[in-house]
């Protein structure tokens, strides 16, 4: 009996030696082979880290125009009146009382109870590109991509304070606990990457004292947790818990994981619990992530001229580096990439702060568009740029002149597959207060993004508390046909 155990033991050691020579992935398949698992039973848990789970009405409902979305989220509320929305009348009325017809009965944030005066543009505007798109002098690099982007000047939202407004922009409602756009997309479409999550979030460092941003903004809400956004950090550990424990090596970790799989598999033979197989696959994907993420964030293979184009210094956590990382994530099949840059909340000293924010984001943003284009990826990528709201035509003076939060009209832009290029959509009134032409609600933006990915926003549903919930809710939402090619 004893010799039998000894024999079996040697056997196991030999097998371990074999497995540890092979790469993790092959080791897994080999181990599964040893255990007699067929390819077919492996099929269920593969399909990326977040396989789609959208039920019988699963998308695509239409032929998709794009494969992925990169959302450049300018948190804090960039001023539309200092970026894309030029209003000569605003300069004409500079310093005068704001006509009450605009503001009567309207929600107001920090200017509650204050005298409301018009604040003229705090920069110059020019017309750029073939269409003569208005772009301010704060954005010289945007001026150069005027032929590539489609500016939406008639955005409206419903929430006037940062936190709920972020929640509204990301989930379509201010009520907590609902899934973010990126979660809906990975739920509907899954990830195209075998090694990376389908929904990745990065928040850049740099700039002024920023407004907080909550993990709620990339939460899967009531969707299964696997669809939650995974935050990538710029520090030594790009994803939480990615590094092996101090004192252990990758080889030891892989031996450990092999043992866990072996034991789990052995135990499950009698049980045939499908959840256990999913768990085995989860360990496999975890170890693939451990291998692939460091490779992803290591930008040493990027040539100098690309780093210069973005203005990226690898590892600095800047928006520039994150834009470059976004391209690398896009290349690797990540479905939804969201980059937050904070610090756009300019109640005062707007000029100074715009210089800071635009200085950090303008060049890398245009570099991302141009880099994707030169790689032929702009055609199957959708880029969205914008914040949770805009800023008032009225003066606010915390320090030098600034502007308060504004929700009745502001600007965003989109670019990429299926979107008109060098096109301006919608208008606000003569003072940039109310969206008047082609008013575009956040819901419409969401419906359009889904449409470009081949999803009918009315048919991407998840049953929660007795209701078939959807990103766009119950109010009517309209795809922005006018901006589609």
């Amino acid at each position, binding site marked *: 009996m004893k010799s039998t*155990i000894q024999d*079996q*033991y040697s056997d*196991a050691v030999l097998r371990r030696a074999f497995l540890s020579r092979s790469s993790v992935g092959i080791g897994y398949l080999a181990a599964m082979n040893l255990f007699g698992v067929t390819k077919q039973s492996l099929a269920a848990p593969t399909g990326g880290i977040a396989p789609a*789970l959208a*039920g*019988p009405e699963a998308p695509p409902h239409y032929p998709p125009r794009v494969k992925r979305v990169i959302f450049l989220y300018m948190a804090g509320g960039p001023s539309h009146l200092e970026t894309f929305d030029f209003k000569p009348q605003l300069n004409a009325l500079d310093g005068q009382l704001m006509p009450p017809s605009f503001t009567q*009965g309207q929600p107001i*944030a920090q200017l*509650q109870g204050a005298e409301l005066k018009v604040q003229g543009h705090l920069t110059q505007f020019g017309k750029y590109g073939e269409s003569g798109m208005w772009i301010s002098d704060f954005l010289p690099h945007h001026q150069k991509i005027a032929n590539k982007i489609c500016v939406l000047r008639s955005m409206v939202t419903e929430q006037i*304070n*940062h*936190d*709920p407004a972020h929640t509204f922009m990301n989930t379509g409602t201010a009520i*907590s*606990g609902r899934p973010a756009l990126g979660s809906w997309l990975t739920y509907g479409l899954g990830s195209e990457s075998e090694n990376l*999550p389908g929904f990745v979030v990065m928040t850049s460092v740099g700039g002024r004292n920023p407004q*907080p941003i*909550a*993990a*709620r903004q990339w939460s899967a809400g*009531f969707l299964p*947790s696997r669809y939650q956004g995974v935050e990538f*950090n710029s*520090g030594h*550990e790009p*994803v*939480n*818990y*990615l*590094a*092996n424990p*101090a*004192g252990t*090596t990758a080889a030891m970790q892989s*031996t*450990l*994981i092999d043992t*866990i799989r*072996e*034991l*789990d598999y*052995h*135990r*499950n033979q009698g*049980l045939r619990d499908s*959840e256990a197989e*999913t*768990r085995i696959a*989860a*360990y496999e*994907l975890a170890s*693939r*992530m451990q291998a692939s993420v460091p490779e992803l964030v290591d930008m040493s293979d990027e040539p100098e001229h690309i780093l210069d184009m973005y203005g990226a210094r690898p590892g600095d956590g800047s928006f520039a580096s994150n834009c470059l990382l976004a391209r690398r994530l896009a290349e690797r099949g990540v479905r939804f990439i969201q980059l937050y840059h904070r610090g756009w909340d300019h109640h005062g000293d707007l000029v100074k702060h715009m210089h800071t924010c635009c200085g950090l984001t303008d060049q890398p943003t245009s570099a991302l568009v141009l880099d994707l284009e030169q790689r032929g990826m702009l055609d199957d990528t959708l880029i969205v740029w914008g914040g949770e709201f805009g800023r008032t035509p009225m003066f606010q003076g915390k320090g030098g002149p600034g502007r308060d939060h504004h929700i009745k009209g502001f600007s965003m832009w989109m670019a990429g597959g299926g979107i008109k290029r060098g096109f301006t959509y919608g208008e606000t009134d003569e003072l940039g207060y109310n969206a008047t032409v082609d008013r575009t609600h956040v819901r419409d933006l969401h419906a359009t993004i889904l449409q470009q990915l081949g999803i009918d926003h009315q048919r991407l549903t*998840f*049953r929660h*508390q*007795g*209701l*078939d919930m959807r990103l766009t809710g119950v109010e009517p939402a309209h795809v922005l046909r006018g901006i589609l090619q």
Partner: protein
Amino acid sequence: MIANFSALKFSSICLGINLCLAFPVCFGAAAEVDFLREVRPLLSQHCFACHGPDANTRQADLRIDQPESFISRQPGDPKAVVPHSPEQSELIRRILATDGDEVMPPQDAKNPLSDEEQQVLVRWVQQGAAWQESWAYVAPKRSSPTLPTPAENAPQARNWIDAYIAEVLRERGFHMSSRADTVTLLRRISFDLLGLPPSLDDVRRFSDGDVERRIDTYVEELLATPEFGERLASYWLDLVRYADTVGYHGDQDHNISPYRDFVIDSFNDNKPFDQFTIEQIAGDLLPNPSDEQLIATGYNRLLQTSHEGGVQPEEYLAIYAADRVRNLSAVWMGATVGCAQCHDHKYDPYTAKDFYALAAFFADIDEAQHFKVGGNSIPTNRPPESAFLDRRDKQLLEFRKRQILNLNRHSRGSSQSSSKDRDSSVDLHTHTDKSPTTDSAYLRELMEEADAIRNSARACMITVSIAPRTIRVLPRGNWLDHSGPVVVPAIPEFLGSLSKPVQRLSRLDLAKWLVDHEQGNGYFTARVMVNRLWMLMFGQGLSRSVDDFGGQGQPPSHPDLLDRLAIEFVDSGWDVKHMLRLIASSAAYRQSSLETQWHRLHDPNNVLLARQNRYRISAEMIRDTALVCGGLLVREVGGPSAKPYQPPGYYRHLNFPTREYESSSDHQQWRRGVYTHWQRQFLHPMLRAFDAPTREECTAQRNASNTPLAALVWLNDPSLVEAAVGLAHRVIGREGKDDTRISYMFSIATSRLPDNQETISLLALLDSARQEFETKPYAADTLVSTGISGSMRRGVTHATGTIHSADTAKAQGDRYERKVNNAEWAAWTQVARAILNLSETYNRN
């Protein structure tokens, strides 16, 4: 698991129920349709949005949520449905129409009926279009089934629960599974009642003899341990959305931890659930409320709040009011009254007026102060607050005060002994008595300690009643629109009314109504709660929709049983422990969870309960299990929230103020998961990876996901690695060969001995780890120094060193001192990590 289930479109859920519940009865020509299970859900899902309770969106003036509006009950009264005559029924003609303009539901609603669903409606009309009230609004009915005969259907039946379950199975020609093996049962019961695995000692003590009776004793023991309250509290805190931070914007800490301890204590005291309810909603309105009853009213302050610059108080007060209605209705009514904020409910009879009338009950809560005085500090200000001593500290303080008094008397020549006081009923588990040195030094020490205890009082937000704000119906939920009528507190109209001729109704009236089984909603509340208690013991409720007992909710699989349980709950005096004991005593609960071919084929979702369920334990239980295996878990009830290790910089996106997370540097590090600091915006990533909710809203059932991120936590989270170091430490000092020690280690985590193959695998791992660490002493030192327990084990040196394990192994009481080789320790740590990563370690089955 449940998420996958609910991801399916409703139609397929209905179909699933048909197949598994109604088969084979339903699939014949004369198959009788089941109105509540088959027909009503279809009408609700496909018709009510436009022909239901909401008058504002009702189309063609046709209402089909009330039978009198659309079913003809006498000749010459043509309505949309003519019983027994599908061909004369407009409803049937329209659902079968092929013309795009005629068909119902309309094409643009994108909510079509499948062929099978159409046929269900046709058959229903053929069979006479019988109507029943939705199960959710019919009060629980008493029933008393007899145990079915022949006995082979339920040979092991132990109480009336089994009668209901066996009866449904008998109708399907099947039976319950046999009893699970004893170890599985002990683990199941221990996880379900304590959230912890059984100790090896318990496994030994309860495995022999008459198993059923042993298990009964085990249940009794567990119900009496303090960990029980912590387990139940973990769940209750999800429901009421308890968290340590304000949630919105700066997400600063707020003072609330005494409320968490109140919940734990209440479950441990087995406080009747009706009293528990009243104290939370309206403890401040009780005559001479006790400290505990005031702490309980922290419930009303648990919601997310904001003092972000630029918030408009009126808007936020409206947000808070809505939040409260959502939570109250979800927790106690299993209702989604939140849907009626902007319009009448689409599927249930709640009107928008009901929503605001419920909100009006809470209009007296003093809660606007923070808009002015909030402040970006940690913690922030959320008056009104009050400081309270923990009940354990209070007892200790009383004891010390009496000691001081005695000592003073003694020094004045009194001969009265102090031993009498020491014999008092004061609970002093964890506090060792002071040994008198000299009287005056001792006295000073006592007085200092008494002061320290007094200073340990913790602030807690409480409810203070002030003159109520005016509450109006907000048209479409718009707080800027003041055109809606003013409402006063009232319960939803269709549920009756509370008359109180002179005075305005109060929160106390509402709370009492919720638990009043004679005049109020008591039986309904009880049914919601027992369904959830059932879920805690089976993983799923008898109605799967533990959060929606409305028209869109799933009817219970065993309605009579659910009703009977609700009645039992009320009759028992709302005795939570009694209900759990009752469930744990049933043969149904004690069944094996193994799936057979029959289960897979006929009841894959285990609706019929012909077996128990297998599922991964919760985030907190995973943490607690690893810590207890590692000999690190601190068993202490209550106190401030604890901060386990967390990845550096995890709070970097927080601001107002910016903050660094400082993980606990003492025994707080190893407290149970229920005490973890609950940061709403950045919930601890370990908890998040295992599906713990952020507690922004009520969570009645968590997902149980299986993700690579969770695997990374299991592998690499320092808390779990440290637990493995601790587990290794528990075995390296033991005598015996490697395989014996592996068996010991394995059984700590799984309550069973490993088989040959398992031993071999682990020996191979040990062997390869030994080879690694023997040549890398520094790596070994590093691994075994994971966490702060390493430095707390005094005397650790490189390669070989002396270890006093008093700090970490205290829980086991094994004080020992010996030579330990760190390379050996590290190698065993790898084995422990494997064991603490096994699916089996964290499965309850």
